């Protein structure tokens, strides 16, 4: 079977002597920088082409056309061919950095893991982080410098910019504008500051479509100064989420999710468990995990919060006399919160208006959350003003013709700016605009100059995490497509002789180190880069004075307006604001609630859909003001009535693979209504559109798939959820004396974030199949997260259930394979031998858990990603063979071989599966069932442990911990 990954591996293992390799090594390990060579992209691509050509020659039997071996010319130190090496760095999302370790095989970055030493990661890695590795290799990335429509080169661009600098200096930088996204990078900030000195008249603007303006404004109002809040979920016993993105998108959510889950495992917390309430208009991950969830329209949320404020004494008493609200529910909530003063956390999502944030702050304040569950630091972002204002000013200046030089660094306003600003037309007024972008996106194409940007894995830079911790980002390879970094660009404007980003960043930190007198810089630099964390840079806690009367002059709530539709804008779980819209893994990642791939849709509550006579797949035309947008409908249980959620980030018109996928909601998004806007008209077009959702049925239909109970039940009788399972079997038992690999998955911890799915995809060379094939039900994900509803359709309980291979001891799949292609080994792994498979697909029919995947076409070779990006430790599967989760057998084998080499036992936790490693909430544990001390056994021994479809007696090795709800006895309605 032809396996590009492996072939490339076998040839590149020796190719790797080539200059770019040595250079890459030098780049990755600073102390090798003396071995640096120049880098030539064309040569790199030639080599790739060569490797692709060689890809076809692999296979068994005689080598009619033997392959070649290319050894090093000079062996670099510390590179053992075939050994993984890890390099710390960080990726940013809307400015905030998350630390990670990038795995290298022969100097090729192939996998992203979280950096356990980094506060924002704690070892976990989000789906988006992990997918970034594919973006690095994406052949669709921008590769050409283009000036005024002419293909140019960096070398021709530099003088142009340099000359411009001259004229700008004369007018003190008047007319010079710089547009960036949110910036936390100390170095970039210092560069811009330096510019400001040279060009006093210049302006720096930032734009983030998913900005946190409202929260910032509210906090500034509340505390008299801008602050960032840090949450201590260990202390929070009562959590109220208001459309909260606390464990899904907020800066630092990976860390928050870790602590959130830790407080919700009754078996580990001696029967104690935080109680979570959620009030939201559209389902969030926090809402899914909430013990009580109340879907409300935005205006209802406003009044509900005022009611709460009244109840807990944070606001005027008369607010407590609200009507047409589920007051019984809210009252119970209010009482519960008050009984837990000091242990309460109220969190509102970035999409909530300033009033809500003020109310949340006030309630937190009066319930003594500040200093306990909520702590303050000065903002991590360097320029923390309103992004919206910032962009508005810029646009107006452009319209007024005040701007003649505009540098756009990694922003894409033409696509995602508020529609009413008409940025595109404004940009036409700018005679000289430069766009530094990863893709030839909408803005880049409209600028007079466009420069391919470096990926974050291709250049030196630095960034700060949600708590202020600084990471020095080191490149994982030389620029694959000739990109340039923002630093290099600004350096030119600063009149510095062209130097590469390494020198710049290095110099900057040398200065910093001196100022902070860090002692020996060499050591400091080495440690910081190596560990991925600059020690002691976490922001100091800030003591603030919350003003108590913020609520007094709060504008009156808009009157209840039911049956008038509202559009809500939300970030997409995979594409964020659209900047990841070209990433195949994220496009094909099933969204936690809709399970949609390759598309976004207008999410409508069942009741509303009924009223409007709409069904999933219908196409509607949504009119806001004069603008109309066509969108397919998706009926989403748990969505609040009368509001239609439109995920942002889709419908790109330029860029890479994402072009044409989904629809863009940005045209409907204006400045005054960034997150919710009344819908002028919604009309059914009569067309239908096929949405590729990978969820078959929404409910378990009486099967024992999701076992759940209440904390009450559990504490009264821990074994109440145990079901008597009989171990009768006709077959003599096989015993697994040495090792018995097993997995335990905790449904309480799983928040459905999809990180494990992407981790598995990255680790195991799982190909993407494309929308058509997903529609044909041929998606390849080895590990999927099933989503089940229970209870009424409008306010359902949600359960997420990760489904890897169960590795049944009496596996039904194995017995029906006629060629021994799937069998057991002596450690109880259910092996899948691809090269023996003839593709009868009987095993899949006979798998009760439906975790087997089949290569109906040669998907792997259809994926246009460079061979270098596949994991060389895993076979790339050919057309016509079955495949499935292997418990990451390659990791097991590598560790076992290493252990056997020096005759030592394997420690528990030494072997970690990809899904387990990436999981932010540690929902997945893998280990040896025979080792009574192992973590996996500890979890399996808990009374909550159960296996799926017990009655089939397949004896799965993967087991689950039942779902426990910490219900508030005062709330009768089980579902709300």
């Amino acid at each position, binding site marked *: 079977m032809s396996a590009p990954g492996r072939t490339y591996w076998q040839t590149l293992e020796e190719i790797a002597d080539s200059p770019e390799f040595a250079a890459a090594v030098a780049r990755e390990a600073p102390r090798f920088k003396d071995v640096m060579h120049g880098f030539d992209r064309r040569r790199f691509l030639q080599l790739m082409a060569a490797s692709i050509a060689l890809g076809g020659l692999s296979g068994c039997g005689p080598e009619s056309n033997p392959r070649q071996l290319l050894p090093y010319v000079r062996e670099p130190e510390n590179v053992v061919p075939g050994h993984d090496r890890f390099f710390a760095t960080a990726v940013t999302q809307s400015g905030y950095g998350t630390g990670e370790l990038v795995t290298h095989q022969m100097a090729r970055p192939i996998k992203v893991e979280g950096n356990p030493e980094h506060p924002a990661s704690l070892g976990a890695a989000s789906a988006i982080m992990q997918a970034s590795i594919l973006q690095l290799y994406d052949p669709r990335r921008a590769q050409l410098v283009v000036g005024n429509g002419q293909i140019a080169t960096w070398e021709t661009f530099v003088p142009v910019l340099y000359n411009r600098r001259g004229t700008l200096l004369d007018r003190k930088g008047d007319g010079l504008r710089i547009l960036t996204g949110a910036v936390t990078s100390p170095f970039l900030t210092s560069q811009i500051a330096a510019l400001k000195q040279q060009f006093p008249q210049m302006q720096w603007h930032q734009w983030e479509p998913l900005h946190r303006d409202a929260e910032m404004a509210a906090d500034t109002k509340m505390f008299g100064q801008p602050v960032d809040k840090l949450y201590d979920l260990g202390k929070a016993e009562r959590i109220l989420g208001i459309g909260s993105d606390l464990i899904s998108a907020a800066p630092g959510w990976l860390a928050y999710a870790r602590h959130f889950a830790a407080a919700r495992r009754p078996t580990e917390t001696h029967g104690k468990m935080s109680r979570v309430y959620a009030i939201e208009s559209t389902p969030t991950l926090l809402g899914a995990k909430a013990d009580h969830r109340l879907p409300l329209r935005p205006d209802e949320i406003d009044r509900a919060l005022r009611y709460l404020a009244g109840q807990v004494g944070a606001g005027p008493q008369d607010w407590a006399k609200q009507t047409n609200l589920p007051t019984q529910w809210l009252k119970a909530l209010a009482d519960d919160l008050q009984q837990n003063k000091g242990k309460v956390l109220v969190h509102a999502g970035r999409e909530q208006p300033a009033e809500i944030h003020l109310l949340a702050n006030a309630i937190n304040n009066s319930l003594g959350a500040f200093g306990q569950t909520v702590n303050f630091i000065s903002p991590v972002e360097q320029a923390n003003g309103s992004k919206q204002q910032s962009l508005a000013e810029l646009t107006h200046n452009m319209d007024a013709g005040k701007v003649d030089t505009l540098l756009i660094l990694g922003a894409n306003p033409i696509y995602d700016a508020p529609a009413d600003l008409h940025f595109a037309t404004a940009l036409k007024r700018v005679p000289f605009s430069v766009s530094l972008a990863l893709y030839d996106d909408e803005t880049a194409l409209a600028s007079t100059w466009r420069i391919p940007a470096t990926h974050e894995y291709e250049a030196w830079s630095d960034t700060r995490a949600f708590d202020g911790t600084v990471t020095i980002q080191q490149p994982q390879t030389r620029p694959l497509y000739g990109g340039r970094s923002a630093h290099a660009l600004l350096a030119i404007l600063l009149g510095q002789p062209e130097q590469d980003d390494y020198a710049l960043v290095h110099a900057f930190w040398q200065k910093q180190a001196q100022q902070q007198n860090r002692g020996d810089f060499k050591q400091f630099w080495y440690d910081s880069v190596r560990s991925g964390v600059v020690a002691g840079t976490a922001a100091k806690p800030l003591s603030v004075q919350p003003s108590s009367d913020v609520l007094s002059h709060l504008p009156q709530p808009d009157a209840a307006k039911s049956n008038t539709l509202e559009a809500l804008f939300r970030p997409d779980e995979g594409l964020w604001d659209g900047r990841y819209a070209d990433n195949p893994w994220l496009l094909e990642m099933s969204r936690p609630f809709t399970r949609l791939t390759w598309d976004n849709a207008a999410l409508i509550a069942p009741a509303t859909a009924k009223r409007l006579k709409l069904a999933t797949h219908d196409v509607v035309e949504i009119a806001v003001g004069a603008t109309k947008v066509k969108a397919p409908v998706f009926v989403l249980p748990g969505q609040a009535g009368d509001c239609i959620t439109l995920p942002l980030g889709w419908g790109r018109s330029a860029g890479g693979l994402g072009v044409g996928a989904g629809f863009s909601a940005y045209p409907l998004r204006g400045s005054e209504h960034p997150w919710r806007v009344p819908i002028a008209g919604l009309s059914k077009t009569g067309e239908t559109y096929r949405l590729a959702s990978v969820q078959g049925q929404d409910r378990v239909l009486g099967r024992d798939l999701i076992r759940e109970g209440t904390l009450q039940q559990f504490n009264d009788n821990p074994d109440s959820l145990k079901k008597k399972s009989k171990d009768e079997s006709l*077959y003599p038992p096989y015993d697994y004396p040495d090792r018995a690999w097993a997995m335990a998955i905790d449904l309480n911890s799983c928040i459905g974030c999809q990180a494990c799915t992407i981790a598995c995809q990255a680790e195991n060379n799982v190909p993407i199949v494309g929308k058509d094939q997903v529609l044909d039900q041929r998606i390849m994900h080895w590990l999927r997260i099933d989503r089940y509803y229970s209870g009424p359709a409008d306010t359902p309980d949600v359960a997420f259930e990760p489904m890897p291979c169960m590795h*049944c*001891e*009496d*596996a039904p799949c194995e*017995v029906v394979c006629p060629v021994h292609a799937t069998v*057991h*080994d*002596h450690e109880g792994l259910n092996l899948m031998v691809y090269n023996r498979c003839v593709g009868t697909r009987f095993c899949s029919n006979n798998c009760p858990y439906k975790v087997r995947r089949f290569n109906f076409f040669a998907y792997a070779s259809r994926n246009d990603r460079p061979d270098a990006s596949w994991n060389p430790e895993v076979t790339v599967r050919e057309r016509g063979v079955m495949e499935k989760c292997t418990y990451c057998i390659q990791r097991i084998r590598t560790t076992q071989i290493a252990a056997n080499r020096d005759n030592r036992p394997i420690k528990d936790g030494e072997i970690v599966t990809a899904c387990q490693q990436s999981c932010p909430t540690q929902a997945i544990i893998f280990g040896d069932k025979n080792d009574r001390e192992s973590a996996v056994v500890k979890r399996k021994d808990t009374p909550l442990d159960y296996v799926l479809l017990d009655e089939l007696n397949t*004896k799965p090795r993967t087991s689950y911990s039942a779902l426990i709800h910490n219900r508030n006895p005062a709330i009768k309605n089980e579902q709300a």
Partner: protein
Amino acid sequence: MTTLYGVLAVFDTPEAATKAAVYLRESGFRRFEAYTPFPVEPLNRVVRPGPKWFLPILMFVVSVLGAGYGYFIQYWDEALNYPINVGGRPHNSWPAFMVGTFEFMLLVTIAAGLFGMLAASSLPKLYHPLFTSRFFERASRDRFILCVKASDPIFDSKDVEEAFGQLGAEHIEEIRA
């Protein structure tokens, strides 16, 4: 002049042929054969074409051997050659091996039957002296033919032809090979 193979007589009914055959046997002839368009039961008893039990026994023996081999090859495969844990089933899952055993047994039995039959009838034999007679073709149509072989100890062409004549043979002919 080639050697005499035997004398052939054509009868138009099985009864006549049988009568003739009985006569031949009673008058001490041993080496004669009857050729008929369809099996005529009485003739069997007169002509005595050899043991009836041979083929059944042959097929039985073969079937036993076949079954044995069929089972063994499966047992060898799963339990001896490469014993792998398949879904926790025992290496010697004899119930599962039964199908293969059974089918293979039947296959070899049928084969033994067919080839045994041909061998026992010493077929194929494209050439046979009798084919030289143009009357012989009717043995596969509507006539019943007796043939006394010259090799019979008491064979004498004159007597035989005479006898056939009396027995009402339609046609009498000497066959030479």
